[in-house]
Structure formats: structure tokens, C-alpha cells
């Protein structure tokens, strides 16, 4: 068996000078090519845990290891570098750059990676857009596309740098039911094709039906 792509060990996190306990002694391993969802009601800590795994936040105690790197030891700059090179993100609001075309949005993570030629960036972005079903829409601006199409661009953007893990926070929340599930199916296909792990934070029951593993969270604790 491969070593886990993410290891969370005994992690706690609190906000507002300790008044709000967002995570309590959470331990979790995520294997490569997982399709896993962190589920639970609002305020259960799923997004906080996702942020810990995504090197966006640091735990108050415990350890987080992502793609072999122990986050506790990393500086802000090093965590930025880890995100740049090893982690893909998909957001609820898509968060595409409206002044860039679809292809430019997808190529954006490659622009900040060294040693990738302009031609290679373009080729990879076009290929990824083809994979997510947006062939022929490379030069469209995000504002000219539907929500589902925008989220497909976001998926392509997350995958274009071949990360071992993609984190998606409520990726279907801004989409209608069928579009949302089409996006989840697309991500599942990508998981199977590319071997990348997808970790969702969601309370959308249709999404939870489609993932391999559901990690239930309540009040900052993993319950199942």
C-alpha cells in the first residue's frame, strides 16, 4: 500500500483567543487517488480541516503532513511554495480571474512554476480544457460562461499542474443539482484517469453519495 498523501495527527485549532474550538484532536489519513468528503453541518470544522490540509492555515497543536512535507515546520513562504507545486484548489465561488480567458485561467498556476515554456503552458491548458469538456471555449472569458462551465475551468486549473491532491470546498454549492453532480462525476473521472486524490468539504447529500469515503465531523471532531 502507498503511503498516505495526507496525514493529520491529533490536530487542534481554535480561533478568537481559544473561545471557538474549530478542530479537536483530529486524526486522519488520506490515501492516494482517494475520493473523500468531509461532511457535517456548518461550523463542524470541515473547512478548517480542509484549510489545514491545504497549507492555508497552521494547527495550534498536532501535525499535518501533505505530500511528504510536515506543514508544522514550514514558513509562510514554504507553505505558499507547497501549495503552488503540490496542491490544487477548487472553490465554491469558482474564483476565476475575470480578465483572463478560460485558457489563461487554467494556465495561471503554471505561470508561477519555473521551467515551463509558454508553449508548454498553453498546450497543457488546452489539453486540460479538452478533458473537462470545454474544447473550443479556450478564448472565452469566464463571464461569458455558465456556472457549470466556470467550475469546469476551476477543475482544469486545479489539475493542470498534476498535483497529488485537490481540495474542493463546497464545489457544488453554487450550481444547480444536475450541473453540480456532473462536476462531481467529472472530478471522479479525473481521479480515475490521473490518480489524484480529491478531498471535498461539503454537506451536499448527492455529492456525499458519490464519494468513496465520507468523514463525518461534528463540533471539530471526526465522528466516523
Amino acid at each position, binding site marked *: 500500500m502507498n503511503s498516505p498523501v495526507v496525514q493529520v495527527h491529533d490536530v487542534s485549532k481554535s480561533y478568537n483567543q481559544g473561545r471557538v474550538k474549530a478542530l479537536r484532536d483530529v486524526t486522519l489519513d488520506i490515501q492516494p487517488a482517494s475520493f473523500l468528503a468531509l461532511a457535517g453541518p456548518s461550523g463542524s470544522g470541515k473547512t478548517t480541516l480542509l484549510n489545514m490540509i491545504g497549507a492555508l492555515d497552521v494547527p495550534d497543536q498536532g501535525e499535518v503532513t501533505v505530500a511528504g512535507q510536515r506543514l508544522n515546520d514550514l514558513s509562510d513562504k514554504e507553505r505558499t511554495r507547497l501549495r503552488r507545486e503540490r496542491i490544487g484548489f477548487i472553490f465554491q465561488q469558482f474564483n476565476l*480571474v*475575470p*480578465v*483572463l480567458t478560460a485558457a489563461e485561467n487554467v494556465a495561471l*498556476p503554471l505561470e508561477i512554476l519555473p521551467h515551463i515554456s509558454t508553449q508548454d503552458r498553453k498546450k497543457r491548458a488546452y489539453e486540460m480544457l479538452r478533458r473537462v469538456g470545454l474544447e473550443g471555449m479556450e478564448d472565452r472569458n469566464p463571464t461569458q460562461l455558465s456556472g457549470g462551465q466556470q467550475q469546469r475551468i476551476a477543475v482544469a486549473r486545479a489539475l493542470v499542474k498534476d498535483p497529488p491532491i485537490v481540495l474542493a470546498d463546497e464545489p457544488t454549492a453554487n450550481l444547480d443539482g444536475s450541473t453540480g453532480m456532473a462536476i462531481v462525476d467529472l472530478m471522479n473521472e479525473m481521479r480515475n484517469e490521473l490518480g489524484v486524490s480529491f478531498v471535498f468539504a461539503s454537506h451536499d447529500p448527492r455529492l456525499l453519495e458519490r464519494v468513496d469515503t465520507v468523514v463525518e465531523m461534528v463540533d471539530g471532531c471526526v465522528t466516523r
Partner: protein
Amino acid sequence: MRNTLIAIRLALRNLRRQKRRTALTVSGLTMGLIVMIVAYAMLDGLTDQALDSYIQYETAHLRGFPQGYLNDDTFRTLDKLFGSADSLRDALADELDVQTTVRLHIPGQLIVGTEEAFIEIVGVDPERDRTVYATLDQLQSGESLDHKGGVLIGRKLAKDMGLTVGDRPTLFARSAPGALNSLRLPVIGILNTGHPAVDGQSAYVSLTDAQQLALVNDSANELAVLGGNRKNADKLREQLNMHGSTLEWQTWEEAAAGFLYVMQFRRIAMSVVVAILALIAAVAVSNTMIMAVHERTQEIGALRALGFERSMIGRLFLFEGISIGLLAGVLALLFGSAIVLWLHNVGISLEAYEDVQSGIPINTSFYPSLHASNPIITLSFGLILTALASWTAAYRAQRGEVVRALREGRL
């Protein structure tokens, strides 16, 4: 370098997000910079024209006076003269390859009937004077001074005294020996130079007539020199001193020191106005950039999540602000230069202010002048101003926490 290029590309694209707001900010800044270009061009044109006027009508590049003449505040200028004026003048002209002429300045009065005015009577050698000064040819009416007897007076003096060509005023002065003496000469021409001292307080006669009035023989109290370039006046003075000259030399710059000081003061006053305009523009740019940061908080969070360094986020907004400055600067250069060029061709009439004693030796029109430094300073000013104005927004954007930006939409 690569990250900087990405930031520049994104910054330029971001200018198109809020087109109307960008257009308003750029327009405001462009207006301010146009005002700056035109204002400094007017000041430069005024200075250039005035200095040309000083050199052409009053100071040449360099003037030699008898020792002590410049510090004599008794106005008894005929006490200090140098003799053999013609031979001294010719010797310098031959040896230093410069144009020279001598003048004899006599404090005196112009009397017409019961009217009298205190003036300076200037004796000139018309032929030689024209090689150094332009005074004698700036005629409003009549004819210029040649070897025949006659007097040229300035436009304003003629107007004040009610004189026209053909009238015969009396020139009255104390001669070198101390006796009062007078000459009655016909007005043969009226001068219009724009120089207040020439037009309002001087009468030009031939050197021979002036020497006769002052009762001096082959003497003068000014030896004027015109070299190749006015900037070399100091070097020319060194050469003259090495040549063994016993005269006291004064460069055009020293003679115009008072005027230059006033112009410097005006430049400072103008700079204060420009600084106020700059402050207003800086607030506008700063406000635009801070609004841009607030509107794009989630996007900033997303970019940080994608792996953009904090500094790169800062640069994104800094370059966006600088791009506004660059755009405004270029537009201001185009429109500002066009306005200056147009004003330079048509001139700005000062006829309405003719009777106002400005002390600036320029004619009834002046012409703004675009010095090479003006566009460079304006463009740099625009860029530095917008960089400083964008700094707060850039700092705020890069300082924010990514989790809060994504979740709460605030930095």
C-alpha cells in the same frame, strides 16, 4: 523577473475591469499632469524669453566696467570711466574671437516743455552695437540710429512724455567735470523691445553725442562682449582676466540674478500648487486602488491559495496603480505638448497687462517653451505619485490572511 512580468500583465488586464472608474482616475490624473506640463512650460518660456531679452538688450554675455562702477550707489557713473575705449574694444575682439562694443551710460533727464523724466542716456556706436545688442533694430516707428544725430527712445517713455518721431526733446545731464550740459536732438525712432528699462527709462544717442554731452573724450563705462554660448560666460571672463584686463566683469547671469531669484521663487510657488494637485490626485488613485483591493478580496485569497507569493500580490496592485500613472503620463505628454506647441506658435498676449510693472523683460506676448526636462519630470512625477498612492492598497492586499480572504471576503 518572470513573476514581475506576470504581475505587470495581470495589472494591465485589471485596468479593464472597472473601465469607467479607471477612465475617471486616468482623466483626473491626466488633467493634473497637463496643468503641470503647461504651467512649467509657461514658466520656462517666460524665463527663456526674459533671459534672451536681458542678453539682447542689457547685459550681453559679459560686460566690463571700470573698477568700483558696479558697487557705486551714488549714481555718479561718470566718475568712473575707461579711456581708449575703441582700441580696447578692438583688441579684445581680435584676440578672443568675440563681438564687442562700448557704451557710455549717463544718468540724466529727458525734458519736453515742462515735463521731465529721469532716464539713462546711453551712447552707442551703432555699427558695433548691432553686433552685440539687438536694441537699435527693435523699432516701433521711425528709423534707427546711424551716425547722424538723433535720439531713439523707448515706446513707454515716448507715450509717457507724449513724444513722437520728429519731436525735439532736451537731454540734460551732469557732465564728467561736474557742469550741467544738455543736448537737443530730434527723436528719430521709437523702440519697442519689451524690456521695461529700455522701453521706459532709456534714450539712445550716438557715442559721439554722448561723449559730447558728458564732456569726455574717447571714454566709456561699459565694454560689452558677446561670445559663442551664454553658458560659457564664466570661462570668457577667465580668459579676459588672463588677458590682463583691468575692468570689472559681470556675466549676464550675475546681472540677471535678481530676476533669476524671482523666477526661482515663482517656480517654488508653482511647485506648491503642483504638490496640492498631486495630493488630490494621489488621494483619487489611492482610493481607486483600495476599492480594487476590497472588490477582489476573494480573488486575492484564491491567488494566494494557488501559490502566488505575498509580494507578488502586492506587486499586482502596485503595477496596476503605476499603469494608471503611466497611461495618464503618456496622455498628458501628448495633450500637454500639443497645447504648449500651440501656445508657442500663437503666443500669449500680455497687452492687457501692459501698464502693470512686472519687472520681467518680455514683450507684449510670451511663448511657452517645452524643455526636454519637462516631459521627463512630468512622467516620472506621475509614476512616482501613483506608485506611492498605490502602496497602501498593495500593502493591504499582500498582508491579508488567505483563509479570512476566502471565507469572510475581508483581508
